[in-house]
């Protein structure tokens, strides 16, 4: 089984000093996400094979891999969007399908799936983030809504429909929607997709601040970009298998020309070598 050793932070991640090199196994810390032996099939084809994923409080973990490697599927299975064929997924210690702990989770989906036919304003979109298993009547005038928009530098555009925004602006509104509930765990699927470099820097800085404040972050990335030095642990997927679970600098090279370290070895070579304990 791959990825069954969950590295933990060597020091308190809240101090912001912990980095991938400090990671040490520590099983006594209760995980915020615990996926065990998970397999997922989509359209009759198995896309995740017996995968484990464990995130402890305060960790910033990057899920990496090529297109179609199963990153987003694992992310969705971990938060209960996709059902597991085998295995289990737990959120804050409770089974993910029944867990009321979803209120403690902030989720940012991959693309602009949020835009229905009637475009909501940024304010309405962010207010929907206040909804939870126990809260069905959010107010778009709740002060937390504007505060979340301010956090991502979007309060000036609170009344603008999200369909009239650029890709980068929309991503920031989606992040504000996740932040508005002050989540203990932030789960993001490719937050830098279609976003220019200055906005990537802006979002990265926000993640750094949240991570330093103790928020656990699980983020799917195509490339680590401006977050490279801040990632505590990288989990690399290839064809639905975890092929690396450890320091980000030791990860195998998956996509030449996508900003990975030049000395990283191609995945085909890495697969034939002994790698970090999974």
């Amino acid at each position, binding site marked *: 089984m791959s990825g069954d050793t969950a590295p933990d932070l060597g020091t308190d991640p809240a101090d912001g000093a912990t980095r991938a090199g400090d990671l040490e196994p520590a099983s006594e810390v209760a995980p915020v996400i615990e996926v065990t032996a998970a397999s997922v099939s989509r359209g009759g084809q198995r896309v995740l094979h017996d995968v484990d994923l464990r995130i402890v409080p305060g960790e910033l973990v990057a899920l990496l891999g090529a297109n179609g490697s199963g990153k987003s599927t694992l992310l969705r299975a971990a938060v*209960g969007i996709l059902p597991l064929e085998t295995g289990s997924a737990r959120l804050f210690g409770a089974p993910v399908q029944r867990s009321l702990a979803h209120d403690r989770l902030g989720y940012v989906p991959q693309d602009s799936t949020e835009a*229905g*036919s009637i475009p909501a304003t940024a304010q309405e979109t962010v207010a*929907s983030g206040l909804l939870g298993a126990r809260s069905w009547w959010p107010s778009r005038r709740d002060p937390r809504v504007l505060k979340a928009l301010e956090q991502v*530098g979007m309060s000036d555009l609170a009344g603008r429909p999200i369909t009239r925004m*650029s890709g980068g602006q929309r991503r920031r509104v989606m992040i504000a929607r996740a932040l508005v509930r002050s989540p203990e765990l932030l789960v993001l699927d490719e937050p830098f997709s279609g976003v220019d470099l200055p906005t990537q820097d*802006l979002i990265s800085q926000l993640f750094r601040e949240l991570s330093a404040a103790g928020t656990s972050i699980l983020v799917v990335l195509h490339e680590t970009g401006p977050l490279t030095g801040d990632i505590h642990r990288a989990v690399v997927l290839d064809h639905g298998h975890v092929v690396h679970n450890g320091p980000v600098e030791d990860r195998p090279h998956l996509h030449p020309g996508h900003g990975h370290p030049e000395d990283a070895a191609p995945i085909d070579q890495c697969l034939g070598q002994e790698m970090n304990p999974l």
Partner: protein
Amino acid sequence: MISPLDILASDLLRYPLIIAVLIGLTAPVVGTYLVQKRLSLLGDGLGHVALTGVAVGWLVGAWLTASPADLLAIPGALAASVIGALLIEYVREVSHTSRDVALAILFYGGIAGGVVIIQLAGGTSQNLMGYLFGSLSTVTAPDTVISLVLAVLVLAIGVGLSGLLAAVTADEEFARASGLPVRVVNVLIAVMAALTVTLSMRIVGALMVSALMIIPVAAAQHLVVGFTRTMRTAMVIAVVCSLGGLLITVYVDLPPGGVIVLLTVAAYILGLLFRALRPARPISALGGPGPGRARALPLAARATPHD
């Protein structure tokens, strides 16, 4: 010449007027969610299924020798459209059948079932005309009471839970991750659509019931921005068109359903013109806090002007 007092004094006209207001309030509420879910034709499919329900009600009424013969037509339409709504939601969720194919099956199966069953009940397809195109003369006091109850139910769910319903219809994936009851909400919306179809078919007719759900919403989208404002504006448009259309048919011998729907189309065209002729406004005028209210924040200060 019929005066407004005559209209209010006459049961024949008072009941349709009450139902017209109820339709105007409820249809756009459901329509907003259907447009958001890209299921604009669901109401049409349910209208056709409701016809089968009308015929089944007629058949059961004939067996029970009910008087009048169509006493159970509306309860039959209600049951059939609710079952149809639940079926389409089930198909949408678990079947590999595409949504438009599933809706097409509802369309054709519904109307064919209506024509065949009404014949079995000893009637003819002419008996269905009032339900197909709407008619003032078919509205009774029990219909009005049923409509009132259905409207209260739809408004309680559709307006009372608007935040929840809007969030689920806008982004199902986010809703699931947030622990929201996505399946319950989808079923609620489908059932609300069924209730609204039943409520509307007496006046507007099964063939045009969907128009009153969808066109006011489309018209409102030209006038305002945001989900809540769109819903409220669509309700105003639909009430004005329903009442206006019905009053026109009091004075001119025209089918009420057709007139009401044509008025909503006119509202849509006016909205289109309004949008085309409206001068571009600065961003802050779109309802945002505006530059004067935006607070300077560390991240806001670092926001990029280019993204």
